[in-house]
Structure formats: C-alpha cells, structure tokens
C-alpha cells in the first residue's frame, strides 16, 4: 500500500512543484497572470494569437491541462462556449467548475458593449452577453487585474502579500503607460477603418476610432462575394484609411476589399504573440498604437 502511495506521489509531484497551476484560455489572460503571479505559477495557454478562440476544439492536451489546473482564467461572455464547457465536463476537476473559486471569467468584471437587444441565429453567431473581445481597452485590463489578483490570493493565501505587491506594481506601471498612451491617442481620434470581425470594438471605444464597416455582415459568418461587393460600393465614395483584422482571421475578404479600394490591409497583433514585439500587455498596446499611428494621416 505504502509503495502504491509513493508511486502516486511520484506521478503527481512533478506537476505540483509550483504553488499554482493556471489554465488560461487566451494569451492576454496568460500574460496578466504572469504579471500578477510571476514565477509562483505554471501557466498553460490554450490558444495562440494565430488561433481563433471561437472555433477551438476540446483537444486532448487541453483536457489534461484543465484536469491539472487550480485556476481556469478565460474571457467568458460565451467566447469559449464551443469548447470550455466540454473541457470542464471532461476534465474531472471539481476545483475549476463554473461558479467555483477556481473558475475566473474576465468578462464578468468589465463593462461589455454591443449587447444585442434581441438574439436570433439569423443575425449570425451573436453573443447574448455582448462583445467578448474585451482586452483591448486599458480599463478592462486594470479592472480584471484587481479581481484576478484577489482570486489568486484567495487560492494561494500564503502568498497573498506577494500578489498584493505585484498588483500594486502592475497597476502603477499600467497607469504610467496609460498616461503616455493618452498623449499619443489624439492623432488616432476619429480614424476611419473597416474591420473584418467585431474584434476591435473595445479598442475603437477607447481610441475613438470610427469603424465604418465590418466585413462580416453577420458575426462569425464569412462574408459572401455579394456582401463584399455591396460594401465596396458603399465605401468607394469615401474609403476608410485601411482594413484591420486579427492574425487569425481570414485574409481573403480584407485583401479583396483593400485591393479594390486601394487602401492598406492592417494586421494588428490583437493579443500577445500577434507580432514578434507584442510580448506582454504593455508591448501589445504599444505595438497596436504604433501600427495605427503609421497609417493615421
């Protein structure tokens, strides 16, 4: 019996070397956990900047990661509806089920925009709880950081002083960075852009960008040729500055439109890893502004 226990301990121990094991659905939350928890945690991120978080599958490695997690940090607002509920159900890990301390959904703590007045699938893959791509508004990040740090210290109370000081340090730097960005964003105000999907609504809200058109007539439904032709006709008299999209979105529709309007396609990093230089939340924002500034005026 003792031998079996010893064997079990050996099997279990390598994964429990760190205080906490965190499963993050998207890179931005993985990066925020890293800011707030430093070396104290092991982080598994389910998606990269090149993968569409809507369409991921509950693949075997993710089931294993959720099974071993102490905390699951995801966006929520139905962004991961296709795969997160299945992962939670398959993983056999009561600590991270919906409504427990080990389950953190960032969208619950921020103001969400584009909440539909009515829900019907004929409108496309609409999210009843509003647009889930919340992370490109600096205030979303700072609000989520507060809540996440508190959750981390609840789960790992022996290190709660650490989480508190890391949070303070992060918020201080985030505030400083915001002051710098606030001075830069004047030039971007009112910049007219077309967007592939409603991926940048929060960014537009923050920067006061004017998203004049969305290539997907209905969210989640690839635009048809006819829809694009209509859009082209509408935009021709006064074309936007460019067409923005994330690294994972299909480039064909924006290539088609930008070609005919003779405007650039602008691929923004969208999340950590979306460009080589977007390595953390600070550089993600900086890169995003930098790319937009390049095309403004």
């Amino acid at each position: 019996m003792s031998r079996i226990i010893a064997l079990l301990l050996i099997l279990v121990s390598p994964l429990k070397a760190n205080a906490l094991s965190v499963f993050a659905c998207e890179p931005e939350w993985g990066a925020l956990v890293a800011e707030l928890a430093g070396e104290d945690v092991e982080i598994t991120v389910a998606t990269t900047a090149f993968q569409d978080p809507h369409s991921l599958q509950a693949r075997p490695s993710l089931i294993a990661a959720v099974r071993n997690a102490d905390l699951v940090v995801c966006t929520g607002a139905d962004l991961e509806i296709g795969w997160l509920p299945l992962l939670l159900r398959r993983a056999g890990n009561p600590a991270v089920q919906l409504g427990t301390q080990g389950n953190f959904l960032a969208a619950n703590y921020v103001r969400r925009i584009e909440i539909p007045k009515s829900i019907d699938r004929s409108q496309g893959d609409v999210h009843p709880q509003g647009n889930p791509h919340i992370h490109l508004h600096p205030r979303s990040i700072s609000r989520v950081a507060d809540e996440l740090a508190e959750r981390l210290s609840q789960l790992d109370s022996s290190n709660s002083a650490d989480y508190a000081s890391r949070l303070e340090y992060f918020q201080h730097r985030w505030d400083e960075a915001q002051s710098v960005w606030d001075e830069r964003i004047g030039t971007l105000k009112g910049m007219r852009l077309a967007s592939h999907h409603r991926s940048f609504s929060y960014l537009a809200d923050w920067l006061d960008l004017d998203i004049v058109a969305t290539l997907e007539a209905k969210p989640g439904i690839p635009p048809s040729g006819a829809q694009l032709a209509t859009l082209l006709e509408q935009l021709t008299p006064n074309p936007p500055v460019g067409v923005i999209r994330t690294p994972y979105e299909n480039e064909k529709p924006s290539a088609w439109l930008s070609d005919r309007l003779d405007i650039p396609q602008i691929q923004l990093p969208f999340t950590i890893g979306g460009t080589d230089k977007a390595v953390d939340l600070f550089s993600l924002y900086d890169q995003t502004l930098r790319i937009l500034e390049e095309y403004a005026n």
Partner: protein
Amino acid sequence: MVNQMYLSKAAVILTLVILPVAAVNAQDTAGEIAELRQLVSEMRTDYETRISALEARLVAAERAARGAERDAEEAYEIAEQTAVDQGAGTSAPNSYNPSIGAILMGHYADVDSGWDEIPGFQPGGEIGTGGSGFSLGEAEINMQANVDAKHFGNVTIGLHEDEGELEIELEEAWFQTSDLPAGITATGGRFFSASGYLNSFHFHSDDFTDRPLPYQAFYGGRYSVDGIQARWIAPTKLLFEMGAELNWGGGFPATGNGETSPGAYTLFAKLGGDVGDSHSWLVGASHISADAIERSGGHGHEIVIPEETFTGDSDLTVVDFVWKWAPAGNNSIRNFKIQGEFFSRAEDGIYADIDYNGDQTGWYLQGVWQFAQTWRVGLRHDVVDSDNGPLLVGTELEDPGRSSWRNSLMFDWSPSEFSRLRLQYTNDRVLAESDNQWFLQYIMSVGAHAAHQF
C-alpha cells in the same frame, strides 16, 4: 580774514562731523545691500521651492482629476452594466432552463440495389443504405444542464418515421458527476460507449452520410450502454485516460439478460496530445466482452426466423486513432483530419441451433480536408470481413467468401456552424455486385451551441 578763519573752522568742523557719519553711512549701505541680496536670494529659493511644490501639487491634482474622471466614467459604466445585468435577469423563471438543441436531418438518395444486411454478419439494428428518394431521416432533440453542484444531466430523443410509423428512441439519458476529485468522472444511465473514436459522437456530426461499415456491422450503428461508466484522467501533460463500463442493457452486440450481473463490460484507454501548435492526436484501444443471450438481429422490421438468434460470448477489440492538422493550429479556415479504426471480434456459442465459432474483422480509414472556410472534401474506404466457418451455410451468417467494402467521396458546405449541406458518392461493394449511390444530405442545428468535441 575772519571769513577765511570762519570758513576753515567750519570746514574742519564739517570734516570732523561728516566724515565719520559718511564712513558710518557707507558701512551701513554695504551691509544692507548684502542683507537685501541674501533676502532676495532666500525669497527666490523659497518661491522656487514653493512654486515647484505648487507645480507638483498641480500635477498630482491633474492626475487625481484624471483618475476621478476615469473613476466617474467607470462608476457610470458599472451602473450601466448593473442595469443591463438586472434587465437580463428579469425572466427569472426561465433562467434555470437547460440548454436545448434540435437537429434536423434528411437526405435525397439515388441507390440501385441497396442493402439492409451485411453478408456474414447478424445485423445489429437499423443499418444499410435505405431506399432511393427523399427521406426525412432523424430529428433529434437534446437537453442538457447541470442538475446541481454535483451532477450534470443530458437527454437526447430521436424521432423518425419508419414505414408510416413514428418511432421515438431514447438515444441518451444520463447523468454525470462533476465534483469527484482526482480526474475521476462517473456516468450513469443510457450513454454512448467510449469504445471506438466515432462512437461517442452523434450521427449528425459524422463526416459522411452514414457510419463506416465496421460500425454498422459490429455496433448496429453505435454501441449504447445502459449502465454505468467510470473514467479516470491521469495527472500528466499528455492526456492519458482509462475507464470501464458495465452494461445491463440490450445495446448490440450485448443483450439484456435480466440478471444482477451485467451482460457486457467495456475496458478502454485513450492517449492524446499535441505536436507543436499545428498537430493534435488521439489514439485509443478498447475491449467489449458481451455475454449474449438469444440475440436477434435487425430491428424487428422484417420477419426474423425466431431460432436465428445467437447465444454465447462476443469479444470485440477496437483500436482507433485520429490526427488533426491546421496551419498554426487555426482550424477555422483550413484544416485536415485523418482517422481510422480497426475492429476484431470473436464470437463463440450457438447460432440458430448450430455450433458457431466465428471471427470477424473490419476497418476504415478516412480523411477530411477543409480547403476553404466553409468547404470540405472527404474520402473514405471501409471494409468488413467475416470468417464464420462452414457450418452456417443457409443462415444469415453464411460465409460470403469475400469481404464487403465501399469507397465514398463527400463534399460539403457549411454556411455557418449550424448548417451543413453534403453531397456524397459511394461505390458500394457490400453485396457482390457494384452499386453506385448518390446522397444529398442536409443537417441543421437549432438552439444550443454544439460542443467542439475533438
């Protein structure tokens, strides 16, 4: 003279009086100047410190104001959000409703001869090509939700019409634990067995209009368990999972025996992981051991000679794999999937009052390529083969002396995640003569968002 004297006297006096005064005056002014200088410089430093202090306070105030502005904005937004959330919660009696989904399926078929039995195999349920023309297929209704903090519940009801009669099938009705520790999950009720990769999927998520031949031959389409299942996931980076099932029900190839001991049990294990960002894989192995009692074939539609039943041991081993690829792991635009399963069964007992000791095998291999965001093409080869010995000549299990196989090519279009139209061509050699079949199928999904099962 007097004047001169007077003058010089006066000059002397003046000199005597003024000089020291002047000297004293000069001394005073220099001191004052120095004092004033010092005062001015003191004042200057004082004002400078005060100014810089004021400047600092101004900056702080500005920052505070900005913060306050932000806070005010935030407070406004929180109020807004709260209003929204409360608004959303007004339909309270409704909010405990389970997620409900319905699947509508149907197809148009052009089949020459078709078949509803595979030579050398006892049919385990409704299998085969179906006839030509339009047929409604199956409507499926699914409901699922957390029962409470400890259980999850799921029920699926299948409705279809057969020769003018509506048939209602309880496809699934199970509950599952959600609070057992250490990667353990227990399931009870009627559920799809974990034996075989495809078996845990519903028909509507298949990549071809019908199940591969081994599934039709060995499972009658799929293997359902009425009983319990326990599975355990190891605390490892790779997914390693194993489990067992006990079946008291009559899901083919098992039969209900009305006894306390189960009629069949399953053991299974799965191993899966990723290779880089672009590749994911899963392999599985399982074994079903069934103790069949008077197992009859078919679904009761045709007249089955009563004595053509099987009583004995049925042992089935299944090995399966699936490999998926997508550029940088982004499956929404392009992806490729290859999967295959191998079935091997040994049955030993009495069939139609004849000693029967048969071995059957089957396998399929298929690849599906999504070459554009809404378009896929797939190719499948499926085979089954039976070796039932010479004693069963004249019965359903008579050895056909050849294997049954098909080649299928499918092409489908999914304008959204919730609808799919499919065209499939099959060259069918299940029977001796070649049969060319065409299917045009629709699959529509209403309601709850489907799970992206790997």
